């Protein structure tokens, strides 16, 4: 089976697919790509089903030697990809030749960049998913981030008659709109006064350095609760925004602990979860409340963009 060799892994690179669903009652969160939209689009461009496993790089990209010819795509944050000494296009089908090196730098703006490969990476499935869950050393490549010297195998397909496509520029702008993050009201909004909920939706919050795939810690104005005691521990949703005892918000993300006892003021809408995966430390964000109906409408708009109509042949 052909493989790519890891020359440099980058800051934190893991194998991720669309996630490990249906195991929350065992205490297992979904994991999966932090920017699911970039993963899905990347797979379509590389000629795969949407949910095939890819390499997710964080903040700084790596260097990879291809031992065989391959068709790939690079999506998500622009980590300035190069093949040998030539720049290559993001969001487009690319052919890389045997013996060539794909390298990246870091990103000027967003946090995560994906490499999808025609045929898909070959890692054993754990509970039906290839996704790496770092905290518990589960899934992906031996349950860990990739390291120098790793060989990552992929399934060889006949690549000669692959159609080369590229995502239309205007679609990219629609997938990553420049606006505040939309949220629906959380299940414990009664823990906060109307003034505090107002403060939450009017203020700017900064992403802290100690944010990761488990959760994004934010700093901003204090969001004091009006009920002192914690809630009885319950299951938490992906994208829930809980307020801990320091009166600061945490966005629970793809590797979150499955239960919690802190009140949740809001929840990121499905249509914006992939944008959370692109946040970096020190980024400034704002929230805006929408209804469940509005959230559904926005999600349908995003889903409609993940289709063959969004690409042009190149």
């Amino acid at each position, binding site marked *: 089976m052909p493989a790519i060799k890891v020359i440099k892994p980058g800051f934190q690179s893991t194998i991720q697919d669309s996630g490990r669903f249906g195991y929350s009652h065992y205490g297992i969160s979904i994991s999966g790509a932090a920017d699911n939209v970039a993963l899905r689009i990347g797979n379509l461009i590389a000629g795969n089903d949407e949910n095939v496993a890819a390499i997710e790089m964080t903040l700084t990209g790596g260097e990879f030697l291809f031992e065989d010819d391959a068709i790939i795509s690079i999506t998500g944050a622009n980590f300035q990809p190069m093949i040998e000494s030539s720049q290559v296009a993001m969001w487009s089908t690319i052919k890389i030749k045997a013996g060539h090196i794909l390298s990246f730098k870091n990103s000027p703006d967003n946090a995560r960049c994906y490499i999808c490969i025609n045929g898909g990476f070959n890692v054993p499935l754990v509970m039906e998913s290839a996704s790496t869950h770092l905290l518990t050393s589960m899934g992906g490549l031996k349950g860990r981030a990739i390291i120098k010297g790793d060989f990552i195998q992929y399934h060889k397909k006949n690549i000669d008659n692959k159609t080369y496509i590229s995502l239309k520029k205007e679609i990219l702008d629609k997938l990553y709109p420049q606006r505040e993050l939309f949220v629906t009201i959380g299940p414990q909004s009664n823990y906060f006064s109307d003034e505090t909920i107002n403060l939450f939706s009017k203020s700017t919050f900064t992403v802290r350095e100690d944010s990761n795939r488990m959760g994004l810690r934010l700093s901003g104005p204090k969001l004091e609760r009006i009920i002192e005691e914690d809630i009885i*521990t319950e299951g938490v949703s992906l994208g829930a925004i809980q307020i801990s005892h320091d009166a600061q918000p945490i966005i629970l993300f793809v590797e979150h602990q499955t239960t919690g006892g802190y009140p949740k003021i809001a929840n990121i809408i499905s249509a914006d979860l992939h944008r959370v995966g692109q946040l970096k430390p020190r980024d400034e964000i704002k929230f805006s409340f929408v209804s*469940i109906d509005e959230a559904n409408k926005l999600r349908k708009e995003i889903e409609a963009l993940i289709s063959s109509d969004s690409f042009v042949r190149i």
Partner: protein
Amino acid sequence: MNDNPVLKFASDRSILIKIGNDISVETHSKVVSVFNLISNSGIVGIQSIHPAYNSILVSFNPVLKSSDAIFNELNSLLSSTIDFTHVQYRTIEIPVCYQDEYAPDLADVARYNSLTADEVIYHHTKQNYIVYFLGFSPGFPYLGGMPKEIATPRLQTPRLKVPEGSVAIGGDQTGIYPVASPGGWRIIGRTPLKLFSPEKNPPALLQMGDRIKFLEITKEQFKKEQSCRQ
């Protein structure tokens, strides 16, 4: 008091079902009944069902079915009369070595409660615990029923790494760490059993509703059992 579960959206892809207002065996039995009812309902679009003390979080795939449709289906399922009486459970023995390097905080728990180490072990092993649910991290059981005689506050500073299998006390709760993880509970022993095995189906040794009993073993027995499982 209305006994029927109450539903509300927790997000645009999840519904929180509240079942009672307390942590009790009675509420737990209802949670198990509702969990089984939803698990067997065959409602299309449900992705996961996470029970807790007095709630169940149902997550769904909004692409497969609209959130309103899922809400209405769950609501009508749970408005019917629910049979809370036929909850079956297993009883499982968990061997624990309460000695030396496996029990770094046993002496502190004893001192805090003005007991000897043997008395702490006696209280910890004397009764059955109920597995209310699994959650937090993979395979972690939320246990109920610890005697208040051995309740001890959490550590001031959590350990960066609690070894897999550690049995610990945090406040008036006791628990077992299925995988090595950070943790602030007081470690009083360790079990050689593997509580979480991702390659197995199901991946967790324990399940919601199990009754467990801790059984004291020696260091030699611990090592023997641990080598057996390799």
